């Protein structure tokens, strides 16, 4: 085996440009596959971290009627905050949310909104809820996301009229004063959402002490079975991110396959050409006492060594590139806010050792198989014919 590696190394170096062209193509596949997988992994981490910080905390309890995908349920999705959670709420480890539907009239235009009541002293979410000045009486203090502000063409200090129907269905209207605008990559927290103090919304709706969603801080908190409320652990709330990443990864596999196919085609061709041109050499090996299996092994090692060279070349230029990407991130050329997913405009790839090792092993395995495939012909060669260089 040691001799096979030595011979393979010499043969590859001796082949010159042909070897390096193969190695360069294969190294591109290495770097691109690792980078793309890193981007997906970074997106996964970023989306889940942002969702935790801005939307779902460590997990939630939903009112049993609440279904974010069914507007029919919204008007009935509220009930008094269960006594079981009083302690946690007082400690600030759980925050109630009340959700109501409404309409906003920016510059006389009409837009549907979700009005969310949130505790101004909360510390679970990164929402700047402390900017909800509760001492204000002539307007309702509110905070909105930057996308919402863009849609409304509104800024900090602007007043906009909102209209809603209370729990009895009676129309009511008032002015909100935008006290802060935040930037977030989770669309569900931004688009069409207006945040106002919880007690204000409860009184507007005639739903004092009631909530739609209860969010807790610590995902390790023991689950309490409360009638009328459904527990939603973090894994379920982030399932859509997992599904999206799974779908995108499947789509990207096609790209990996195309990249590998190109590299493998080059290696396959090189191997076929080698076996065709090096028949005398094969005959000599056999004459010197090599078994046919050993000769096949020699050629297979030679082919697989392309992957080793490519890995080394990838490390030479890929490591600085991948490290720079992890720091600078990749900014998507299209506006990510329209995706409807928790996705930041700039994604920072995250590379794990498992990701790099699995990619190297995958490429090495595929290269070995592709190298072995044409080498099998050697086993069928007649050694004397091969020694004479006769085409078989």
């Amino acid at each position, binding site marked *: 085996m040691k001799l096979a590696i030595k011979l393979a190394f010499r043969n590859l170096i001796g082949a010159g440009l042909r070897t390096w062209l193969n190695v360069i193509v294969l190294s591109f596949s290495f770097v691109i596959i690792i980078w793309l997988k890193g981007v997906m992994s970074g997106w996964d981490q970023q989306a889940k971290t942002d969702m935790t910080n801005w939307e779902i905390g460590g997990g939630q309890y939903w009112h049993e009627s609440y279904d974010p995908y069914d507007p029919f349920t919204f008007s009935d999705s509220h009930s008094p905050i269960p006594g079981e959670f009083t302690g946690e709420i007082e400690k600030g480890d759980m925050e109630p949310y009340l959700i109501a*539907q409404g*309409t906003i009239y920016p510059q006389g235009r009409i837009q549907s909104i979700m009005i969310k009541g949130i505790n101004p002293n909360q510390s679970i979410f990164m929402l700047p809820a402390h900017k909800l000045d509760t001492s204000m009486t002539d307007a309702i203090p509110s905070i909105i996301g930057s996308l919402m502000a863009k849609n409304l063409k509104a800024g900090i200090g602007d007043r906009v009229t909102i209209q809603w129907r209370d729990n009895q269905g009676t*129309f009511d209207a008032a002015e909100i004063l935008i006290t802060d605008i935040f930037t977030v990559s989770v669309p569900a927290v931004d688009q069409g959402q207006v945040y106002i103090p919880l007690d204000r919304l409860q009184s507007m709706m005639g739903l004092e002490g009631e909530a739609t969603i209860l969010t807790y801080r610590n995902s390790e908190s023991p689950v309490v079975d409360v009638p009328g409320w459904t527990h939603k652990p973090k894994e379920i709330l982030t399932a859509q991110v997992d599904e999206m990443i799974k779908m995108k990864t499947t789509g990207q596999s096609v790209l990996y396959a195309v990249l590998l196919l190109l590299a493998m085609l080059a290696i396959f061709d090189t191997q076929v050409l080698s076996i065709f041109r090096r028949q005398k050499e094969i005959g000599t090996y056999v004459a010197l006492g090599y078994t046919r299996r050993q000769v096949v092994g020699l050629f297979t090692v030679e082919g697989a060594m392309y992957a080793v060279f490519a890995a080394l070349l990838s490390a030479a230029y890929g490591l600085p590139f991948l490290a720079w990407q992890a720091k600078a991130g990749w900014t998507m050329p299209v506006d990510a806010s329209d995706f409807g997913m928790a996705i930041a405009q700039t994604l920072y790839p995250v590379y794990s050792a498992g990701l790099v090792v699995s990619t190297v092993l995958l490429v090495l395995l595929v290269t070995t198989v592709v190298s072995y495939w044409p080498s099998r012909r050697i086993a069928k060669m007649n050694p004397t014919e091969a020694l004479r260089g006769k085409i078989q």
Partner: protein
Amino acid sequence: MKTILIPILSTCLLISATAQDANEILKRVERNMSSDNRIFESSMIIHGNRASRTITSRTYAVGDKQSFTEYLSPAREQGTKMLKLENQLWIYSPSTDRTIQISGHMLRQSVMGSDLSYEDMMDDRKITEIYDSEVTGTEPVDGRNTWILDLTAKVTDVAYHKRKMWIDTERYVPLREELFAKSGQLLKRTSLSEVKQIEGRWFPMKVIYKDMLKQGDGTEFVITSVKFNQSIPDYIFSKAALKQ
């Protein structure tokens, strides 16, 4: 002389109106405005910022609880149908050949860009059943004497907590109406005109709706023909009729 007469006449009118129960006035208005059923064709003129659009339709209505509207023009809206049964509303769109139920936030959207929202079409109880009314004054509107009625909700599950109506003192037809939020903010204003006597009742043929929170000149609703108490087959008020 004229300046003295008008306040005197108005005061006399107010005294007689107060004497005449406000509820009684509203009942007489309902007699004019309501019918067992009606079939009417109408034009809805929506005044936008740049241009106006006219949408014509034919409506079959039984009381205030059931109605079926088919849009006749323009070509883009032709064939669109809307069915209201009690508190449910469906819309059929011929371009997609699909029927969707309007619910939740969609009810708050405007009907074809007009100043009317879908939920404005959903309240179907009699005014006298849900409001306490009081005659608070008189005022001429479009050259006609009117009583001003202030209505305050006597039930909690009502869309508008307060309403103000200007009722023609002779014909018992509302000539103007204002709808207020619980906070007292004026939300909508309706002006009714071109009152005609049809089949023994006075009926306004033109209504201008104005969403006071929205920009624009409002939406004109002109009834081009109306027939009361016709025989309307039951199948019209079914979801199956939407696709026919």
